[in-house]
């Protein structure tokens, strides 16, 4: 199943090019080294010195191993899981042994035998691989997909029933407009109930968002104005589905509906060399009438989905003052599935 490969956390052998994985490996190994230092330290006061010593031994091998893993990621993924894991162990052991032999004087200085270093490196790597395997079980593809499906299918009932009401009043007077509205509504729900693991392009998501906004326009009329600023380079970028539409729904619900005079929702999509940025802004300050609850849910929802799709490589930021509210999502560019 092709889609499984999209989620960084669901394979027992992690994606060595993912920032989150690298960070976890660095932290994990250093933590083990610190633990080892504690065990070998005669007194607690000696621990910091032992830690430094251990770090000096561990770091070069660790960094080199990670760099090599970065290079051979695709190769490892093609092997059976156990063989892949064994290769990682051998690589870690090999790098450590190699470094120790090259810098033999440096290592003997600390009084460590090469064989001991190799065994230690392989044991530490085994611990790390065990952690990644457990983590993959927690985020099993089936669970991840179910979770994503549940997260995706969250179009506000408020919007659905108001739209249906609008369409009903169009049917007699303006049947063609009613047809178009129902078609848009159906596209929107197809997207919401579609394959959550599929990747769409920015162009697809923008098209869907336009359909959604047309429906809102039907209801709100001139109160809703949308300002699109889309960098043409961003249109072919791949993103997970429904990244934009829920944020627009939020912007309309919290920024436009509570204001009698309406306002402008602005959408800005830019792409530079390695980062794609989606920004949605809406006015605030509606006085006492507002939709108090519900805002945090949609944002928490998108945050969770970003974590499932990208681990640590994507982030969501919120800017807010008395008058304006802006949500920005940063995604890695050119992220090809491995």
């Amino acid at each position, binding site marked *: 199943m092709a889609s499984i490969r999209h989620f960084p956390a669901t394979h027992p052998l992690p994606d060595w090019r993912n920032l989150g994985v690298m960070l976890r490996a660095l932290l994990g190994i250093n933590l083990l080294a610190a633990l080892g230092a504690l065990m070998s330290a005669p007194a607690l006061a000696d621990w910091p010195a032992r830690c430094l010593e251990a770090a000096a031994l561990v770091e070069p091998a660790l960094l080199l191993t990670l760099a090599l893993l970065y290079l051979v990621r695709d190769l490892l993924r093609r092997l059976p899981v156990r063989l892949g894991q064994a290769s990682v162990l051998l690589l870690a052991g090999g790098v450590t042994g190699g470094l120790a032999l090259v810098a033999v004087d440096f290592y003997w200085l600390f009084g460590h035998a090469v064989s001991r270093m190799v065994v230690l490196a392989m044991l530490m790597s085994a611990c790390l691989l065990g952690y990644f395997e457990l983590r993959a079980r927690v985020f099993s593809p089936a669970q991840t997909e179910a979770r994503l499906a549940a997260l995706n299918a969250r179009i*506000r*009932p*408020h919007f*659905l*029933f*108001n739209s*249906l*009401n*609008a369409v*009903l*009043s*169009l049917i*007699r*007077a303006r049947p063609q407009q009613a047809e178009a509205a129902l078609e848009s509504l159906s596209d929107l729900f197809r997207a919401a109930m579609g394959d959550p693991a599929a990747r769409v392009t920015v162009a697809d998501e923008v098209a869907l968002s336009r359909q959604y906004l047309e429906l809102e326009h*039907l*209801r*709100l*009329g001139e109160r809703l104005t949308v300002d699109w600023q889309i960098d043409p380079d961003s249109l072919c970028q791949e993103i997970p589905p429904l990244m934009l539409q829920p944020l627009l729904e939020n912007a309309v619900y919290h920024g436009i*509906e*509570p*204001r*009698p005079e309406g306002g402008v929702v602005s959408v800005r999509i830019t792409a530079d060399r390695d980062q794609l940025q989606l920004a949605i802004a809406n006015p605030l300050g*509606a*006085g*006492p*009438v*507002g*939709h*108090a*609850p519900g805002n945090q849910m949609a944002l928490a929802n998108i945050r969770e989905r970003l974590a499932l799709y990208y681990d640590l490589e994507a982030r969501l930021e919120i800017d807010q003052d008395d008058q304006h509210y802006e949500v920005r999502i940063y995604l890695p560019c050119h992220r090809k599935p491995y």
Partner: protein
Amino acid sequence: MSPETVLKVLIVDDEPLARERLRTLLGDLAVQLPSTVVGEAANGLQALAVLREQAVDVILADIRMPGMDGIELAGHLGSMPKPPAVIFTTAYDNYAVQAFDLNALDYLLKPVRAQRLLTALQKVRQSPPPSAALLGEIGQQVRGGGRSHLACHERGRLLLVPVPEILYLKADLKYVVAHTRERDYLLDDTLTHLEAEFPERFIRLHRAVLVARDALAGVERAADDDAEAYGWALLRDLPDRLPISRRQWGPVKAVLQG
């Protein structure tokens, strides 16, 4: 209401198509229940303006609207000599539906069915209108805050004072007076009630005075022999000085510093 009379209906909804839909349904029901739509409004404020010019039997009002919502609109009707009946509508609103069900108030779910609208129109005159106090309570629950406007009756006319424009409120004998930059208004509410309804907006200075937090410019201690007040509050936009009681001195200073 005799069967021959034509029911005068006012439709209030911020969405034009939702109003159109109700108008169509009333047309469909004309045989069973003759009615005429005497006006449309996009929120409670506009609806009250229509009511000043026009006699209305029934208002169909959306619960949530910007400017002034349907619940607040219904609350302002109580003071009219012959208030129209109100039927509430909502498309989907968990908070409102819960609050209405809890208090056994009727409402129509959008999209509205013709039959359901007919029943509601037929029985709306039989049940007594909900009290202003109940509407105030439900309004607070649904919108999570106080009203947008306070009512002031002047020579038989209803004036609406936007809450954000009120700088301070002062109790004089039987009445509460709201002071804005332009003028003063006699209100029907009590100070205690207003303090409870707008805790975010007003702070008590004195037994008889509430002030808008953002209108407060500073405070100064009164002379020791001043029997009237422990301190005085200065306002941003008015030259008026307001008395602060000994008890409120601490909390008021905290607001200025916070």
